């Protein structure tokens, strides 16, 4: 046990320690010092990132009776999750200001969510996985609901309902798989499944499991929640919601697709079809929307579906493209939501609220525009390379997937339309009768926006090292 902790669990344990610290502080510290909650979280996450270097990755390490594992794949995802958590914690300034007395509790919940997300990636049996998913989900309900106002409560409740349904579907699949193999351990299931003929039951079980998991990525049958939830969320929570659960779920779904669920071919077609439907739904839904957050919700759903399509055609190359895509994607998203955070979201943000904002705020609005351009996939941003690399994976998977790819490519043109809808008002002339907005940003918000925008630029100009890293990790899974 102690061995396990020192070999692979140090980052998680560090986070757990800081969760307890936050809870203790919330009992004893006066609400006047609410500001320091953010500082404690940031320190905790940074320490955890540093401790990540002490984790054993080579060879694979199985801890706590094979229920958790660690290799370089999980380490990379842990790193990305922690970085996203770090940026989110920095962005929570405005939110914490409104809930002063509960600041420490809020940050404890945020850390718990990150802790849950880390455990999802390193889970090596279905029970651990389920518990970790619930840990992430429950914390997320509270995070969403923590903002003032009616909409956040509504969003939180909707998220709870869909998560509950999808958990049920997931558990149902797991029970079937347990019935076939008599184990919940991923490595054991893989060994048993690989040695026998895949049955119909197995296919149904694997489809249900994956359906239950990907509903958190807003894939088609359970996709509608994302619109309402994003509408009601505070922007710093959105920065969290659009990155951390996505990384965690992609981390585990890719591993499941490569190992225990790899025996049947039906799953591939089901996921590919669902992701195509999702891309169609999300992109066409966003075209007629004017609410910025809803547009980004649809964009999140659409982007997840592109990556999922590549992930479903299991191969090492495809896996590396998916990892690279996620790596690029989280930074763009955080940059976008950092800007929305700076702008402040007291009312629903319409695309026309940003009219002419570039003229007074060159740096901030420029970075935001750059991130949106990256999401649309234009060159000199990481979005361009990531899209090409991801689509090359689908193109390499055989002629049968060329129609899928063509459909996705045409849908990205639809996506361009709504990204332009966000982008163009920024540069428009402002009317004489509306007052000019000059944004006030504190250092932490500026820091997040600039760093993520820089990351988008660097990964766009000099992608080779990052792609190499992704290939290394995909080969060593």
């Amino acid at each position, binding site marked *: 046990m102690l061995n396990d902790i020192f070999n692979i669990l140090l980052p998680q344990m560090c986070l757990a320690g800081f969760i307890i610290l936050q809870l203790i502080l919330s009992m004893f510290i006066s609400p006047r010092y609410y500001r320091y909650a953010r500082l404690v979280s940031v320190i905790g996450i940074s320490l955890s990132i540093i401790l990540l270097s002490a984790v054993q990755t080579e060879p694979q390490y199985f801890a706590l009776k094979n229920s958790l594992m660690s290799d370089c794949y999980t380490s990379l995802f842990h790193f990305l999750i922690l970085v996203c958590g770090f940026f989110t914690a920095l962005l929570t300034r405005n939110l914490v200001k409104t809930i002063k007395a509960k600041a420490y509790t809020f940050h404890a919940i945020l850390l718990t969510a990150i802790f849950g997300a880390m455990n999802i990636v390193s889970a090596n049996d279905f029970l651990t996985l389920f518990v970790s998913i619930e840990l992430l989900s429950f914390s997320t309900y509270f995070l969403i609901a923590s903002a003032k106002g009616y909409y956040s409560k509504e969003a939180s409740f909707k998220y709870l309902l869909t998560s509950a349904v999808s958990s049920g579907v997931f558990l149902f699949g797991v029970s079937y798989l347990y019935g076939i193999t008599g184990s919940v351990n991923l490595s054991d299931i893989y060994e048993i499944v690989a040695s026998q003929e895949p049955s119909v039951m197995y296919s149904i079980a694997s489809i249900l499991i994956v359906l239950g998991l990907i509903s958190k990525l807003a894939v088609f049958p359970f996709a509608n929640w994302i619109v309402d939830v994003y509408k009601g969320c505070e922007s710093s929570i959105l920065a969290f919601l659009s990155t951390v659960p996505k990384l965690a779920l992609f981390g585990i779904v890719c591993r499941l697709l490569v190992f225990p669920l790899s025996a049947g071919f039906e799953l591939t077609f089901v996921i590919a079809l669902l992701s195509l439907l999702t891309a169609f739904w999300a992109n066409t839904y966003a075209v007629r929307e004017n609410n910025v957050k809803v547009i980004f919700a649809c964009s999140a759903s659409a982007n997840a579906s592109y990556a999922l399509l590549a992930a479903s055609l299991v191969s090492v190359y495809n896996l590396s493209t998916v990892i690279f895509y996620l790596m690029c994607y989280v930074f763009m998203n955080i940059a976008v939501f950092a800007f929305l955070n700076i702008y402040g979201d007291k009312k629903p943000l319409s695309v026309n609220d940003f009219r002419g904002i570039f003229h007074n705020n060159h740096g901030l609005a420029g970075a935001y525009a750059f991130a949106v351009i990256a999401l649309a996939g234009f060159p000199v941003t990481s979005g361009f390379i990531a899209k090409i690399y991801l689509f090359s994976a689908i193109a390499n998977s055989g002629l049968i997937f060329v129609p899928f790819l063509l459909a996705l490519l045409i849908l990205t043109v639809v996506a*361009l339309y709504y990204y332009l809808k966000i982008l163009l008002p920024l540069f428009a002339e402002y009317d004489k009768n509306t007052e000019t907005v000059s944004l006030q940003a504190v250092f932490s918000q500026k820091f997040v926006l600039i760093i993520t925008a820089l990351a988008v630029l660097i990964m766009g100009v000099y992608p080779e090292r990052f792609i190499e890293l992704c290939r290394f990790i995909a080969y060593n899974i």
Partner: protein
Amino acid sequence: MDIFLSIPFLIFIPFVASILLISPLFTNNEIVVRRFAKGVCVFHFLYSILMLACFDSANPYMSEIHFFGLDWVQSMGVKFIFKLDSISMILAVLTSFVFMIASLASKFNIRRNHKFYYSMFLLLMSAILGIFTSADMFVFFLFWELELIPAYFLIGNKWRETDEEDVKKAQNSAIKFVLFTFLGSMVMLLGILLLHYYNYVSNGILSASFSDIVDSTIPDSIQYLIAVCLLIGFGVKLPIIPLHSWLPDAHTNAPTPVSMVLAGILLKTGAYGIFRFNYETLPNSFSFIAPVLAVFALVNIIFTAFVAYAQTDIKRIVAYSSISNMGLVLLGLCAFNQIGLSASVFHMVAHALVTCGLFMIAGIVYLRCKTRDINTLTGIASVMPRLFGFAVLIVLASIGIPAFAPFISEVLTVIGAMNSDLSDVMKMCAVFALPVLILSSCYMLKFLHNGFFGETAYEKANDITVHEFLVLASVLAGLVIFGLFPDTILGMLK
């Protein structure tokens, strides 16, 4: 000498200047901004002329950029590699020239937001030069996408005091342009990805350079699929007829210098793409598709000539005539022989010059008379005699009168198509194309007749200024020089 002549320098001068212009550190003074941009363009033109003078077609310029010792995306075999062979060289110099005269023409047409305008203008220049010089498919695609952003702003922004309705129209046509081109480029990306992958599978070379692609080992059906995907992508830009509907709107609603650039250079990127990808890299499938494409080219020539005749807006007439002329360029490429190729490249140059001149004239008329409707315009000749002189000469050049460049290229195109070995369809196309060229004189002379002759309605209008004179004179000089000495270009293409 060689160390001073490098392709990256050629491409990235405008890029660096563009970044410099948009940065907050650069002055807001419009005169300084304009002169700086003009200076960059003139310097760039001189530099490209120098490169042309030192050009040796047996030993073309090559250059490769490494990123800290690595290729750009080594895992996909993508190298940041540039090459200037004779066609690229001609088109690069042409780009430089057109942007130079467009920057001169900007003075009276752009009245606000100078920094942003010139920054986007130079960025577009850099992107187009990148398209013409890249020797790697993905680098080509990078520049192909990069060009969309500045092109959008150049067409759609409000660059002078106009009413809201015009701005709205310009924005809509800019969005239309971007969506059309992006759709084309996404289909093209599919073609590029498939080509990249199947070249790797059948030849074992993980590379995206044009020189590493061998099409003969790729299965036939996949070759055709790739070729059609690529042709759709380039067909939007060229444009080939069913994909053309963005062009008249974009060209009409853009300010004059931007129209010059769009018609003069941007359309040529489509033709260049067909040459570089389909003609040169995938000759097997192209020789199969070319006769079909030639029919499309013929439709381009005939159909748009009739449409142009029905138009009343001067800029729309010129825009439709551009589509018609690009059909001719396409026909030359489809001939799939040396004469056809030379004719095609020559016509790209000739048409760029003609169309720049015509858009300039349309712009001048619009500035002075506040309208572009040929039914209301009348008698400009008596108030603006010097403009009239240029207009007559350039219109005559555009309808293919001997001693001007378009005459040579039109005749050569038809000869090329006649001599084509591919199919009898080509000969049929050639037979129809020649008489149809007469149609161009119908709409062009209508424009000249309605606009310039008759009773004048204008008391007093300023004749052309020095800037406008320089633009028109340099266009005319180009047309006459290439008309009288076609060997300057044709010699390079042998």
